[in-house]
């Protein structure tokens, strides 16, 4: 057989075909809402974030200090053993300079890029990173391996969320930047 010998299905529509009503359509916005149980490990993780601390969980058998914390070790498959506070500093494992929002809409010309990163947290086992944002930094100065520190919300504004940390900023920012905060994520959810 050869693909070329067949008449292939698939009728392409242009975006204007929709706008001009050349094709019948129906719309739907599902109401998909959840309240997920945090359970033991994430429940404690969020509570500690509210208190301005990052907590990890230790597996003695694998000798790992794990972040985010978990009540079982996914490698040796037994319960983890102990809680441990880790630092709110870390190292940039990798980063990006994002000009699109979560829904693929583009950030406006005056909106600074978002700076997502994987940050390896000091005190956790090597390579234990979490995804978070970077701030108070010129994107051009970003480098893998850079030391960073968490910038927390004011205690009264914290809600027990990963966003209680506003972003991580370089530890040795030489010049004072006037862009105080990291940009807000765009697009309505």
């Amino acid at each position: 057989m050869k693909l070329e010998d067949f008449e292939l299905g698939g009728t392409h529509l242009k975006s204007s075909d929709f706008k001009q009503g050349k094709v019948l359509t129906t719309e739907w916005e599902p109401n998909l809402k959840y309240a997920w149980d945090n359970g033991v490990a994430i429940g404690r993780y969020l509570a500690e974030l509210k208190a301005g601390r990052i907590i990890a969980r230790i597996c003695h058998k694998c000798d790992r200090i794990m972040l985010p914390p978990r009540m079982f070790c996914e490698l040796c498959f037994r319960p983890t053993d102990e809680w441990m506070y880790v630092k709110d500093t870390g190292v940039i494992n990798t980063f990006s300079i994002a000009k699109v929002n979560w829904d693929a809409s583009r950030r406006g010309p005056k909106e600074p890029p978002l700076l997502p990163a994987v940050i390896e947290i000091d005190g956790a086992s090597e390579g234990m990173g979490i995804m978070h944002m970077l701030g108070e930094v010129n994107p051009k100065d970003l480098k893998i391996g850079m030391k960073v520190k968490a910038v927390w919300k004011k205690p009264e504004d914290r809600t027990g969320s990963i966003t209680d940390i506003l972003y991580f900023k370089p530890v040795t920012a030489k010049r004072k930047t006037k862009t105080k905060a990291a940009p807000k994520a765009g697009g309505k959810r």
Partner: protein
Amino acid sequence: MGMRKVAIVGAGITKFVRRAQETGKELSWQASKMALESCDLTLDDIDMVTLGTAPDAFDGVHMKGEYLADGAGGIGKPYMRHFVGGGTGVFSPIHGWFHVASGMADICLVVAEEKMSTCHPHPAGAFLTIFDHTTEQPLMPTLIWIFALEMNRYMQTYGISKADIAQVSVKNKRNAMDHPSAQVAEKITVEDVLNSETLCWPVNRLDISPASDGAAAIVLASERVARRLTDKPVWIDGIGHSIDTAYWATRDLAYPRYVETAARMAYDMAGIKEPDKEIHIAEPYDPFDYKELHHMEGLMLCPRGKAAQLTADGVTARDGNMPICPSGGALGVGNPIAATGLMKIIEIFLQLRGEAGKRQVPGDPRCGLAQAGVDLMQMGTVVVMRS
């Protein structure tokens, strides 16, 4: 071992398009009907059906495997869906292989479908909710972040430039010019890629495969039936699948070990000791251009960090020593997730039969491989095929 041999005996595919008028059911039927016609079978001959399709959040139907059943030929038959994220399309023949190699079915229809355009205004919106709902989604991530983060780490680890990586997009989009299903085939240059809009540095628009609608299907048969149906069966000689932890930020992002474990499983089954010599042609998953390189390394087709050089040297071109994505891949043909994986299987099937037309690689290839994967950079699916 005494395992039953399983062959691919027929294939079908739709065009990959940005917005299809057809429903997902109709696309599935178009591909499935073509697959049956290609090997002179009717739906009556099919013992069982398996369907691969990725998130319900694309097509916009809860339990969409159930919704698609009639278009996929599943009515009144044992019919089941499998779903391993971006790895789904190459898992499809693996699930089909379970059906036939176990002796449960003699002939199994394997269908893969995706209709991403239903998700408006852009399917990207469905990707926010692939991240951990509590510890990641509040940061409002987009899918491109995770690829950009991985690409940056990969570039840094091996000292690879954006230009090195852009060559993959150039190659695949050009290869796709000969694929009848292709959505975004074009002749572009490395500069075009580098000058295209930067979305999430280091990722530019032309580094990424498009969102697509499409379907693909194959027919699997047991050895006895396959030999009766065709004089050119293509055998599934090795299958492998593996998933890494969901805690993706705790992993080495420079190397896809989930692909390596899946590949080792498939190579063991196929008796392959030196993949770089024994595999003649490969279709690794290329949703982003660097991913082709990343996956080639995970497949052990070249040493870590060396895939870009092979691409620069033309080794992975269609007329090179190790053609990679001669179909045009996700970057060129399009990326209706599950259907893309099966498109890759179909390309290897046609290439090994010498029926790939203008895309045919020289040198009479006898052993090929298709791979898909990803999820949160964690899923690997690998199929080794021989003529």
